[in-house]
């Protein structure tokens, strides 16, 4: 026993070193890099990069635009999620399955493609909706311009809505209804109860959704890149990218100096977020006994509200995929018509896959998804075991390190990795991308595995020991089978994230290590919308296939439902 315990804590030590290298090393390199004279002059101390980065007169405009973009889209997504969560959990709105579709499906559509699809619909020169409206009403000018701050906020807000919803809906569902009922008993109406009791009690969850939204939007690159750059709306992520973009005059030092602030803000916000979620859980788990849903009757608002939700589902789920599919078949942007359907062909598909770089990108992305997810899950297994089961001394540190990467803005940490990899032979290789992916997306593996380990109550292992099985048999016949569903979902989650990865890739990818997202971006830059759409549909199809596979495998592997305990 004593021996076993000592070995777990030394294993924990090894894990801390590995995870530390993965998460702290890029941060450290970012910090050193920001004080260095250049990528090839690492360690040559200078403050010039900070001076240059922070004295640029354009920075103020970028910072203001970033603030408007981040706060605007976060408020929009949280408000939308709040309304949706309330409608689903607390009212008698019909067809509630629609809310699950709204909460899950948008996450299967990569941000890059979602942004592109909105560009295809609402761009001012030939956006399908714009053209259709101009034809219908004989307008001179396109009514919408998605290449604007408003367009960015709209699209980013829709993208982040599911995240906010997944935080708010459980909090609302497990909300102790008696708190509201007592307010009603003491004479407050529905509205007053909502404002005075419901929302204040939900405050930690709402704040958590807001904070997480800010962190994610600050790191968001797809929307600013696809919708912001054509309209010359620059935010921090695109501004940083321009500093390091090859072809201009890349300055990784300045980018690192500026990135330090973004990183500091993100890490601080994630700390706040973790506090808030801990508080949410406290609020939520207090009740549970005697819980029962009391629904608010919507009356004559029931169907209009349902129609609004249905429209939203259409706009968020169906429209983006449909427009990509449509664009991949028509020769150029044209409003759907008999003529358009007559001209449909596989031309873009054939061209997209005749392009050797597309094929390379697809191969690379598949490799990164499969190998990366396998490596990531293997590492996550050990981390989850150490943090949940062994609870040895370093477990807290390990957990903090793991979740540190959750707060990293992709571009910034990509710059950190760049500083690191340039000093090594793995620079510009697929391995560089692999390491970056695993480090940045580690929480996606650790989360499901940690909860899988929590499911395995110690008594389940102990009863196997008492029944006469040794440690190895217990592991093989009890622990592993119980973990398999968690392993499968962690693997699928990581694989889908890696398949679509954009932000790290734009920094680390070089000729030869292109991935699907960078290739799609290249098509976008060249205005090759048809080829882009074909490649995008392939990306969505693989992601969706993986998710469906996970659901089937998961259902097959979980015959017994919840574990004892």
């Amino acid at each position: 026993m004593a021996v076993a315990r000592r070995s777990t804590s030394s294993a924990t030590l090894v894990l801390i070193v590995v995870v530390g290298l993965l998460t702290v090393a890029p941060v450290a390199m970012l910090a050193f890099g920001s004080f260095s004279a250049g990528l090839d002059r690492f360690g040559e101390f200078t403050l010039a990069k900070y001076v240059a980065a922070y004295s640029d007169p354009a920075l103020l405009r970028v910072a203001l635009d970033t603030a408007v973009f981040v706060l605007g889209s976060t408020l929009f997504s949280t408000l939308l999620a709040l309304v949706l969560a309330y409608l689903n959990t607390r009212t008698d709105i019909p067809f509630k399955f629609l809310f699950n579709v709204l909460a899950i499906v948008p996450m299967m559509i990569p941000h890059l493609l979602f942004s592109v699809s909105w560009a295809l619909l609402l761009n001012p020169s030939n956006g399908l909706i714009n053209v259709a409206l101009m034809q219908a009403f004989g307008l001179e000018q396109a009514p919408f311009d998605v290449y604007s701050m408003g367009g960015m906020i709209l699209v980013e807000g829709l993208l982040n809505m599911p995240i906010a919803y997944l935080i708010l809906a459980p909090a609302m569902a497990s909300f102790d209804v008696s708190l509201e009922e007592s307010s009603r008993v003491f004479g407050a109406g529905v509205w007053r109860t909502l404002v005075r009791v419901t929302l204040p009690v939900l405050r930690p969850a709402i704040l958590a959704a807001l904070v997480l939204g800010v962190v994610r939007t600050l790191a968001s690159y797809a929307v600013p890149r696809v919708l912001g750059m054509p309209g010359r709306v620059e935010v921090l992520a695109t501004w940083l990218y321009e500093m390091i973009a090859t072809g201009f005059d890349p300055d990784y030092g300045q980018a690192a100096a500026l990135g330090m602030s973004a990183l500091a803000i993100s890490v601080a916000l994630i700390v706040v977020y973790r506090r808030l979620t801990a508080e949410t859980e406290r609020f939520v788990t207090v009740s549970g006994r005697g819980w029962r849903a009391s629904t608010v009757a919507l009356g004559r608002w029931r169907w209009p509200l349902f129609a609004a939700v249905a429209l939203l589902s259409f706009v968020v789920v169906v429209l983006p995929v449909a427009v990509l599919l449509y664009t991949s078949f028509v020769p150029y942007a044209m409003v759907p018509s008999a003529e358009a359907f007559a001209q449909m062909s596989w031309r873009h598909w054939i061209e997209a896959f005749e392009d050797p770089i597309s094929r390379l990108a697809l191969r690379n992305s598949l490799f990164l998804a499969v190998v990366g997810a396998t490596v990531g899950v293997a590492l996550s297994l050990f981390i989850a075991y150490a943090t949940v089961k062994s609870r040895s001394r370093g477990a807290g540190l390990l957990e903090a390190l793991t979740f540190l990467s959750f707060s990293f803005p992709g571009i910034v940490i990509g710059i950190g990795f760049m500083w690191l990899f340039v000093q090594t032979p793995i620079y510009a290789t697929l391995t560089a991308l692999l390491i970056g992916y695993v480090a940045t997306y580690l929480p996606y593996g650790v989360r499901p595995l940690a909860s899988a380990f929590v499911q395995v109550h110690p008594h389940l292992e102990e009863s196997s020991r008492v029944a006469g099985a040794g440690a190895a048999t217990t592991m093989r016949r009890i622990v592993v089978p119980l973990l398999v569903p968690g392993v499968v979902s962690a693997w699928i989650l990581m694989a889908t994230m890696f398949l679509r990865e954009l932000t790290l890739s734009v920094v680390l990818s070089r000729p030869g290590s292109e991935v699907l997202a960078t290739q799609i971006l290249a098509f976008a830059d060249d205005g090759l919308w048809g080829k882009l759409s074909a490649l995008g549909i392939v990306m969505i199809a693989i992601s969706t296939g993986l998710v469906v596979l996970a659901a089937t495998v998961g259902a097959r592997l979980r015959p017994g439902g919840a574990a004892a305990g």
Partner: protein
Amino acid sequence: MRIRVEGLRKHYVSEGRTVAALDGVDLDIPANSIFTLLGPSGCGKTTLLRCIVGLETPDQGEIAIGDDVVFSSKRGIAVPTEKRGLGMVFQTYAIWPHMTVFDNVAYPLRVRRASKARIAQKVADALRFVQLEGVERRSATRLSGGQQQRVALARALVAEPKVILFDEPLSNLDAKLREETRKALERFLGELGITAVYVTHDRVEALALSDSIAVMRAGRIVEIGSPQRIYFDARTRFVADFIGRANLVPATVRAAEGNELVVDSALGPLRCARRDPVRLGEATLCIRPEFMHLRPGEGEPAPNRVRGRIESLAFVGEFYEAQMRVGDTLLLARTEPEVELRVGDAVHFALDPAHCLLLWQ
């Protein structure tokens, strides 16, 4: 099989403080008896059970099951759990959710590499014994709490262990099911006739199920004895109070006269049954409510007659629970529903010296 525990000690560190979970425990559990470890939570009873089964390693001491020493700190013996040949029912039942009922019960036989035919036979026997036939193919966690409990029991006994251990097996059931399951368990254990060690904090379970009870407190065994011995003849205030409802009254022992002790108490002068060894001076008197037969009125003065007034009355179904005030002392009593009493009424009762238990510790 007999279980011997000698000088068992186990410490653990909690929030920087060292806590003694077991503080020198000696036990001798006779073969083929149902032995209960009873005590409040945190008294060390579960730790003791887990040391016997091998899921915890004691710091010091020796444990023998039958003739096999399974743990000895002096001789450096620590037989791993799986080699001890025991059966156990866990508080959470620990039913494996990824297996059917059959697979759960068959598991101990499979890890012992029994033949298929033997497994089928023994599992069927075990499930018949716990009256759980026809659910073999069901997923075990889809069963009700009471049924899961029986799966756990079938699994514990299927490999014919030398000893079965129970860690608060009824605490997860609701009150009605708990009573039913307890009765079923009484019958199963009676029929099995093997050594069972049973951990609980519920005194009714302990009294109803056990051949012997060891009452534990703060990592030590306070008293060991038959349920009757523990209930009627407790030696310590802690055990008398823990095992049943008790009125504990300060008293002074004046003298011993034949089979009786002369006592001054808050209830007045009393004669109590003699308990050896006699110690004169400070003591505590334990009077159980069921031995106080309250009668209306003052009653004639007589030896061992206690007089007072009804302070409160509560109807709890089978009887009234009365609080009786005697001077500054409040006594809890039970009264038969046919005796008509009202709050404020004068009442008295005669205390049989045999039911007047003196405690010195």
